[in-house]
């Protein structure tokens, strides 16, 4: 197992590809891809953003997805997050075949089981910090009664207890991303999905955010994050290397096993 963070993992020669799509641990699967394809058709041109992918994400696992631009990382995350549907194949979330669910049911899944963190933070500009954190609860069919309490607690956890009634435009990038993390946690999701969460941040701030991810992982959260920086991908326990819509390699980083 390589341990050199500067290695260009995305361009591993084909013969060295080692595919272990399932860690095979005894933890329950959270998300499962079976023969998933996502094909974009533009005129008579076809783009296979995801090309026959078999994968199992298990509870408590800490994944990073890396690969060159256009390799299908975001597409993978969108399908995982039920924002997009596979063109072909099966995607199960928490044992449920998402292909059988309608738009409303998928929305409900998103609000209950998933937490999203985006590169550009994606906070709602007219809402203050507290309200932004509470947005996912707004759309649950029976939201928890302690929602506000939870949101306050999470804001405290990401160090924003003094900014609860600030608007996003009054915050720095790092602070906005912390709000987004608190928002991703407020519904106690089965899986946290982050697409280039540190892409807009300086290295110091990125480190703080990644430290937060590490902490969440230690608490047993399932995390999948996309990055194009090898050094960042090494923070995860399992690194998924993508190329051209395919899984090129899955590596386990040599990190001390979690307690």
């Amino acid at each position: 197992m390589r341990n050199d963070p500067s290695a260009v993992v995305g361009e591993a020669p084909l013969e060295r590809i080692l595919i272990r799509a399932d860690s095979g641990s005894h933890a329950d699967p959270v998300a499962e891809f079976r023969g998933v394809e996502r094909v974009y058709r533009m005129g008579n041109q076809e783009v296979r953003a995801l090309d026959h992918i078999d994968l199992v994400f298990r509870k408590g696992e800490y994944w990073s997805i890396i690969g060159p631009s256009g390799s299908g990382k975001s597409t993978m995350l969108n399908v995982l997050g039920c924002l997009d549907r596979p063109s072909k194949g099966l995607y199960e979330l928490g044992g449920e075949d998402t292909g059988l669910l309608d738009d409303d049911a998928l929305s409900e899944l998103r609000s209950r089981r998933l937490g999203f963190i985006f590169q550009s933070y994606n906070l709602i500009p007219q809402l203050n910090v507290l309200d932004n954190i509470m947005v996912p609860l707004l759309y649950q069919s029976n939201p928890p009664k302690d929602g506000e309490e939870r949101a306050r607690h999470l804001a405290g956890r990401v160090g924003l207890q003094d900014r609860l009634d600030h608007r996003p435009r009054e915050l720095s990038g790092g602070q906005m991303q912390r709000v987004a993390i608190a928002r991703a946690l407020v519904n106690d999701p089965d899986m946290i999905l982050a697409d280039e969460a540190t892409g807009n941040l300086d290295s110091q701030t990125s480190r703080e955010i990644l430290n937060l991810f590490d902490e969440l992982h230690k608490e047993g959260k399932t995390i999948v994050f996309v990055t194009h920086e090898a050094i960042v991908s090494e923070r995860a326990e399992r690194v998924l290397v993508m190329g051209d819509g395919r899984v090129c390699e899955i590596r386990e980083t040599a990190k001390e096993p979690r307690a």
Partner: protein
Amino acid sequence: MLHKLRSGLTTLGVLFGTSSVIAMLAIGEGASAQAQEQIKNMGSQNVIMRSVKPLEDQNQGSQTTRILSYGLTQEDRERVEVNFPSVGRVVPSRLVTQEARFEDRVITQPRIVATIPDWLTVSGREVSAGRFLTESDMSGAKNVCVLGTEVARDLFLFANPIGKRVKLGADYFDVIGTIEPRMRFDSDAPGAGEETTKELFIPLPTADNWFGNMNMSRRAGSFNAEEVELHELLIGVTNIDDVIGIANASREMLDRFHDDKDWEVVVPLELLAQAEKTKRIFNIVLGSIAGISLLVGGIGIMNVMLATVTERTREIGIRRALGAKRRDIVAQFLVETVVLSVGGGLFGVALGLLIPKIVQWYTDMPTLVTLEAPILAFTISAGIGVLFGIYPAWRASHMDPVDALRHE
């Protein structure tokens, strides 16, 4: 509401639409209510036959003295009484052209109506003081008179006229009573339904004795006289269902016995139906014009909402990603449009209630705000908000979340 100015301007469209619906209906209703009241004052159960001066012959113009004889006659009266058994009462009257005088006060052109006691009940008027003409006034051809409110006021100011003597032409008449003016339909509206003529009443036989059928007038050196037996036959029909039949029969009868068209038959009931029809057309036309302005307001709202949806595409993507269902997005935008249109509608109702008052104040045009008008206008404006909000909201809810999230 991110854009207060834009929302405000949009709301104006609905505001003016709503207020113009109300104002237009109020003006239309006012005009027709006035017309209807005037018609009802003639008595909806009455048929009125009137003498009409026939069109003058051109070659008679050179004559310096002529007597023109036309109009209804006592024979017409008898024919009505004989031919129409269901008729309740037939009231003849003749107009007398004389000055009215009390001490040094003069009314040069009063409307002196020579008639019979039944006039009061058939015309539906009421005595305010003293009494109206009676049978004994008739049989004795007494020199008595009953004054209308205006005549009483002009001749006697605020003194009690009863028992005083009024001079009509060369003769003195005892004042025996006064009658109430015609009912006004809206005390706010100046001129509405008010008595416009200076009426006073004398017994018909008295008029026969003193003034005859001849009314004389001098004009530009020539001397004209008109001979009219009866100016009006007021027919009080007992059963309202017979009114139209009797009106038609009266026209036929007069047509047969009069060579000239020196008469007319006025049927308040027919006029009422006509007025109602006119009012309906009037309301439809005014309502449509106002409705179009509401429509324009609605299109304005739709325009702004479409812009808002585009502007907030990203927010829609975020909300969808975080679990908002399509109906949550629809609701969010629909609520916003309804707030805009209902806000405009409410201010519009307020302005719409104000405009008729202003119009009435400045133009003396009677206006009438019915309860339905603001309710109708408000409902339409809110409905338009929903209607024109549906499409933008639908568009927002059917965006692809991934695309929406990528939107700049």
